[in-house]
């Protein structure tokens, strides 16, 4: 079997396992896993930019919230059908990421981090400012009638699980395909040495722009899906901690690996789940994990696996 075949087998295998888990998991973990798959999709979007292109953004909550509020406002204020509202959310994410990329890609390194952080914060404050429509911190609930997509009622746990799995599977396979295409290989080259890629005649700006829009669009899709699957839209999803989460997932799982975002999201979700049983200050765990990761395992779990066992892991 070729390397590509083995990798494809591994990822399809994961999807099959996730499909099978639907029939065996108890309701609590079943619900959790649906949530984890949506969050992992968000992290997949983040990984395209951070893991493969090497651009560390601290403002991805802006894209997630663009998808979530694009969908939520369209369905609750414009009265659009859920399917169209989902498209509005994804499109909003694509537009926002394109606009931010126009500005932020003029910078790099630390300045890029601060610029994305600042614009995401401005986006969060804008949501609070227009509290009349967005209901600010309190957020609003998507009515059950608005959560029926092509005849599937997404408030039903089974439907919700399969919807989350579909979204996750599509984004996982898209990202797997992406990094094997010349476009994705060029992104990795930019991460390793941007000057050299430019010298070889590639338009690095256009590639980074493409990466940022793909990344933002996937994140927005996750945001829109989160809103419709769990029936809630709130400003906390646009705040700074929500930009840190995908960074945490990707760092923990392994930046620049296709499975890393899922592994990281799974680990972190259950770590915080266990911690909230002990204390309300569960973000403490996130802080400790971040510090330990930067100190001891900057490669993350899948990164370590790639380094030790399987060099060709995508």
């Amino acid at each position, binding site marked *: 079997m070729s390397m590509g075949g083995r990798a494809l087998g591994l990822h399809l295998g994961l999807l099959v396992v996730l499909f099978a888990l639907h029939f065996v998991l108890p309701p609590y973990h079943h619900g959790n896993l649906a949530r984890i798959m949506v969050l992992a999709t968000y992290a997949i979007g983040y990984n395209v930019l951070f893991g493969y292109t090497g651009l*560390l953004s*601290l403002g991805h909550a802006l894209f997630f919230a663009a998808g979530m509020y694009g969908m939520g406002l369209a369905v609750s204020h414009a009265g659009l059908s859920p399917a169209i509202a989902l498209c509005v959310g994804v499109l909003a994410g694509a537009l926002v990421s394109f606009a931010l990329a126009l*500005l*932020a890609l*003029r*910078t790099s*390194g*630390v*300045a890029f*981090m*601060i*610029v994305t952080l*600042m*614009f995401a*914060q*401005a986006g969060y*404050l*804008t949501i*609070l*400012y227009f509290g009349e429509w967005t209901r600010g911190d309190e957020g609003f609930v998507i009515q059950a009638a608005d959560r029926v997509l092509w005849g599937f009622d997404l408030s039903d746990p089974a439907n919700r699980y399969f919807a989350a799995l579909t979204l996750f599977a599509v984004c996982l396979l898209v990202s797997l395909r992406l990094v094997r295409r010349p476009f994705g290989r060029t992104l990795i080259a930019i991460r390793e040495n941007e000057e050299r890629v430019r010298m070889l005649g590639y338009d690095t700006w256009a590639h980074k722009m493409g990466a940022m829009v793909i990344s933002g669009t996937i994140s927005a899709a996750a945001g829109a899906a989160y809103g419709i699957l769990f029936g809630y839209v709130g400003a906390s999803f646009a705040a700074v901690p929500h930009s*840190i989460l995908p*960074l945490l997932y990707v*760092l923990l799982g392994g930046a620049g690996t296709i499975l890393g975002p899922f592994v990281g999201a799974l680990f972190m979700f259950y770590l915080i789940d266990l911690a909230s049983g002990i*204390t*309300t*200050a*569960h*973000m*403490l765990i*996130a*802080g*400790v*994990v*971040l*510090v330990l*990761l*930067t*100190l001891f395992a*900057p490669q993350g779990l899948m990164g370590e696996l790639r380094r030790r066992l399987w060099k060709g892991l995508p």
Partner: protein
Amino acid sequence: MEFGPHLILATLEGAVTAAVLALTAVGLSLVFGVMRVVNIAHGEFFMLGAVIAWYVAQLLGGHPAVGFVAALVIAPLIVGGIAVAADMTILKRIDYDPERTIVATIGLLYIIQQVTLMTYGPEARPVEAPFNTRIELPWFDWLETLFGMAQPWGWSITSYKLFVIFAAGAVLCGVWAMMARTRIGLLMRATQADRDIALAFGIPVERVYALVFGIGAGLAALGAVLIVPIQQAHYLMGESPLLLAFVVVIIGGLGSLKGTIYAAIFIGLSDSLVLVLLPALVGLIFPEIQIDATPTLSKILATLLVGLVLVFRPQGLFGTRTT
């Protein structure tokens, strides 16, 4: 109240904000200038200063001035010590890599914030000011027909707020004297100019880094102790000073202390003046529009401004050196 007194009052209030902001931002700027790293946890050092001031005031009891003076000394020392420890255990081990430092200090931010939540709790608690006499300010105006002294309502400032302005000024002079006149300041400037050459000349660069990180955090804590009698101590209070300090450091030019202080005065004043001036200005030009200059709106504008300044002038508004 009339527009004139209102404007001067807003200027004085703005000067208090500017004074505390200058202390916090100079701390951040010092760390960035010498160490070339961005400390996201800086706002949490500020918050820790306020919380420790509350603990000190509680423990000592007695006259408010006793607790306050003790807090002025103890809080910056403890916070500085925590920062030095964080530098030696975390930042030194990741070799001050700029991107990994940001991730690590984000982690530090959550650790400090959440540990405070677990121990100090979610309440906002006040610390009593050591003295708080109200100073009525005179205002000259036409009274009916003749010119005389008036006392518009609310036209006063507390002595404590004036003290904050002077205390911050004194500390900033102290920082300047340390950087310009002492041996340790010389070592810091040498490290800032070129780390490798400094190392080659036998300067203990790692110890200088630890010290700078501690002093930076201590300045933030000092600013917090000064502000805590006006604004209560709360575990989330570090967020907005962090943001404002960023604004100031970036506009003032990354790593330039003088620029930072100018920018702090500019931002601190504009923050409160925008609330007074913007509605008045818009009202003058378009009498029919009622603009609502809420703090949220001015925060949105401030954040966008920082972002845009970094995009188009990465060296800062007043900075000349490219970084």
